[in-house]
């Protein structure tokens, strides 16, 4: 069964402030003596107040300057991270685009390069039939080594970008 009283907040405020019963009005004291709810509130507030006062005297918190310093440092670090986040994203997107473009160019140009190499080989062979025996192996060699050539070209483009990427990543890690 719930039983509360309208005077509870007043009693709690007086008791928790250490003003009970010295600073309380006589009629309030008389009320608390006859009101179970207010009696509980006064007893608890006095107990909490005593606990608070004893504990406050012993609480040890870091100095204000130290807290300010730590908060400022952390805020700075978080701000720096937030500021460099778009750059990191842009770097990632750029790397992916370059790799994708290199693959696409290779895929698109591969058939035409292959046919051009074959055509060039046949042309050379047609000009001087006696060279055929010499040129034909060279033409087939050029056709076979084309993927290697393309791969080397792609590495030439990508290697500096990867070096730059890792260098920036290391620098970010140091921050």
């Amino acid at each position, binding site marked *: 069964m719930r039983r509360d009283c309208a005077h509870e907040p007043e009693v709690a405020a007086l008791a928790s402030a250490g003003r009970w019963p010295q600073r309380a009005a006589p009629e309030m004291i008389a009320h608390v003596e006859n009101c179970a709810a207010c009696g509980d509130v006064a007893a608890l507030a006095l107990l909490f107040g005593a606990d608070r006062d004893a504990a406050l005297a012993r609480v040890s*918190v870091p100095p204000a*300057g130290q807290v300010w310093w730590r908060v400022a*440092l952390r*805020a700075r670090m978080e701000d720096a991270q937030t500021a460099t986040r778009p750059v990191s994203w842009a770097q990632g997107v750029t790397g992916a685009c370059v790799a994708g473009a290199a693959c696409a160019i290779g895929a698109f140009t591969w058939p035409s390069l292959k046919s051009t190499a074959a055509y060039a080989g046949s042309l050379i062979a047609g000009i001087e039939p006696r060279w055929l025996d010499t040129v034909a192996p060279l033409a087939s060699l050029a056709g076979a080594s084309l993927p290697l050539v393309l791969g080397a070209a792609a590495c030439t483009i990508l290697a500096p970008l990867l070096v730059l990427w890792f260098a920036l990543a290391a620098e970010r890690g140091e921050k």
Partner: protein
Amino acid sequence: VGELTVRDIERLGTLDEAEQTFAMTEEAFRRFYDETSRPLWLYLARASGDARLADDLLQETYYRFLRVRTTFADDEHRRGYLFRIGTNLIKDHRRRAPRHVGGSPEAQAADPVESAAADRVARRIDLARAMERLKPRERSMLWLAYAQGCSHAEIAALLGLRTGSLKALLFRARRRLTRLLGDGEAGR
């Protein structure tokens, strides 16, 4: 912020800009901190039931407080906002580690050397033990109401409750605590 490195310390020379980052000057913060840090720590320790957690939450509370861009009507509003951040941090912690019981606040409550009155110490130990057995929200409510003397409206705002609901919840928490204290005294 964990342990600071030499590199962090080297950066301190440029930390003067911090005042531009926060909505408060260092001088104002020092005054505010000196007024609020101890009651806040005590609230965090009593509401969470863990003194070590209170140390961490104290730093985090001030960090979030300083990072917020809010205009405060007066010191009371500012103080209420600070305690609300602390309350939310306790809630977040509880959500992340619901089974964590934490250290006992008895270490703060009981100090026989400090207090000559053994009865008072025993009552404070009873209170600490009884508080440990309450729900975190009940601990917060009771501490705010009876240790800090907050009004029902203030407690409701701090804990994110309706004032009407708070009265009933506070009544139930008080009844539970009274019963637990009665058991404690009977057990002695």
